[in-house]
């Protein structure tokens, strides 16, 4: 995990240093005064040879020093930490919706194997994987917000209002009112993987001897489907979450833009379009970091759920 992050940071370092144009631009806003520029040059060692710069870069990174955003005139760390939670809430809600619907639908489609609804279900699922996420978001916005006026058209709060604190935000219904459409949009895209994976695993598991034997013991069909088939089939789906999260982060970028959701994705887009290099760099590192971390979490979850793994720890 750490190795990957290190490589990513290194790649970033080279991308930003080798950008066409003045390499100093990566850290110094041309509108700074001579003096300010000089200070920054020293802080980031921009007048030193490349390999020394790299060392400073890594050291800064470990210290959590990511520079200052040109646009916001605030430290990158501050800017990011203001919006990072919003992205996490969005991802979490989307993942929950996607996984619940996906897993249940996967079980259902497996149960209905060979019937017409199975084909219909599969084609519909492929649609959700083939449709551009932002387009789905646009449609949902146009219909449910602009036309039917059920949901707000963007942002995390109504125009002009501000939440008193993080907790106040989480407890306020208005927040969820704003969160719902973007989360739903992301969920629509994400549910394909758990659905298809669950269905596929169920079909495999339903052929296992222990499912037959459970029926033989006179247990009800529902119980057999859930406790015997689904419970065994869902283990790999949890691992799949790691893959799913990778896709989620990419999706965040566009979905946050469509809904003007104040999150990390939208921040990245803004930073790139305004050539705010420090912010873009910081946002990118964070996004990669979140992904790597979530993979790690998924691995742990898997080992907890499958008693065949990690036997010694359990006895």
């Amino acid at each position, binding site marked *: 995990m750490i190795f990957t992050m290190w490589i990513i940071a290194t790649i970033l370092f080279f991308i930003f240093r080798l950008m066409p144009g003045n390499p100093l631009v990566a850290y110094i806003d041309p509108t700074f005064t001579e003096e300010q520029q000089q200070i920054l040059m020293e802080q980031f060692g921009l007048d030193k040879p490349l390999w020394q710069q790299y060392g400073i870069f890594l050291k800064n990174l470990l210290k959590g020093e990511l520079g200052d955003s040109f646009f916001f005139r605030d430290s990158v760390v501050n800017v990011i930490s203001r919006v990072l939670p919003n992205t996490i809430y969005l991802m979490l809600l989307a993942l929950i919706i996607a996984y619940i619907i996906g897993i249940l639908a996967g079980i259902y489609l497996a149960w209905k194997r060979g019937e017409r609804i199975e084909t219909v279900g599969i084609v519909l699922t492929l649609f959700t994987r083939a449709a551009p996420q932002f387009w789905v978001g646009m449609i949902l916005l146009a219909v449910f917000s602009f036309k039917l006026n059920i949901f707000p058209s963007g942002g995390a709060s109504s125009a002009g209002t501000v939440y008193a604190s993080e907790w106040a935000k989480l407890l306020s219904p208005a927040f969820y009112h704003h969160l719902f459409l973007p989360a739903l949009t992301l969920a629509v895209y994400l549910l394909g993987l758990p659905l298809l994976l669950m269905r596929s695993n169920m079909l495999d598991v339903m052929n296992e001897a222990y499912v037959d*034997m459970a029926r*033989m013991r006179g247990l009800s069909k529902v119980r057999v489907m859930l*406790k015997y088939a689904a419970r*065994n089939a869902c283990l790999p789906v949890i691992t799949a979450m790691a893959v799913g999260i990778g896709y989620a982060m990419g999706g965040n970028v566009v979905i946050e833009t469509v809904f003007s959701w104040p999150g990390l994705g939208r921040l990245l887009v803004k930073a790139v379009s305004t050539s705010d290099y420090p912010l873009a760099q910081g946002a990118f590192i964070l996004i990669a970091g979140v992904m790597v971390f979530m993979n790690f979490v998924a691995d742990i979850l898997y080992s907890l759920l499958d008693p065949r793994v990690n036997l010694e720890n359990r006895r």
Partner: protein
Amino acid sequence: MALLEVRNLKVHYETDKGVNQAVDGISFDLEQGRSIGLVGESGCGKSTTVKGIVRIMSKNAFIPTGEVYFDGKDILKYSDKKMQEMRWSDISMVPQAAMDSLNPVYTVKNQFLEVMQLKGGMNKKDAIERAENLFTMVGLNKDLLSYYPHEFSGGMKQRAVIALALALNPRLVITDEPVTALDVIVQHQILNELKELRLKLGLSMVMITHDISVVAQTCDDIAVMYAGKIVEKGTGKQILKNPLHPYTMGLENAFPNLNEPNKILISIGGSPPDLIDPPSGCRFYERCPFSMPECKHKEPGLVELEPGHFSACFHREDVEKYRKEAKEVETWQQMIM
């Protein structure tokens, strides 16, 4: 009235290539307290028969005709719900491949309690006690109950599923290849234990196996199956001492026996016929060393050649001669050409 009376049972499968007549008219009786072995090679329809009796067949299987009387009532006419009630409480099963027959993500205890509480209506305390007793009865340490299925060894697992099969005091236990996956010594032990349990508890048993020597050890009656039909039926003694059907004679040669360690094993050449388009005459015709021209076109029915001993073969008087020839390697080898 016998405990189990199977009358002309047929179980067919729909496949892409046609209807597979896997079980094509099986009849046998099982008296209370006795055991019958259904013997035959893979694919002859033994497991299918049993799955048909308790109706846990796959989606494309169906029963075109037949009756199965359990305690005098035709259970094939029971609704799915009623059948579900009967399962495990009246008829239970010791499965093939005990390895995979338990849910891997729950403890063994959990699965015992599940069936005893849900179907047997026991409370938790009683259920645990009974589970422990069952384990002790099959020779397992009761602490093992808290373990997961994959933590058991092969022989232990087999004993565990036997214990589970007895959980609700069923009247009939079906065992499907109960010892195939085990080594010969353990096979012997488990078969003996099964026999003792059966006698002690007064159980009736149907044992499915492809190994005729296993059946010899444990079963009172034997029904030999081939290509979806019963080709010989009788008591264990009758069939093993005086086999009447060539297939039975061939089977006897093919399996190792602890009592005859120097026995030469002779396999029956060829393979069973396609049951989607079964042959019109005797189904064993292709592989039978004693076949006659009439065997190809006419199907021999089951005929009682001595009291309680039936055979589906046209050889009825000169069986003694063929029995001797069947013991020679050459007889069978010439069929392999």
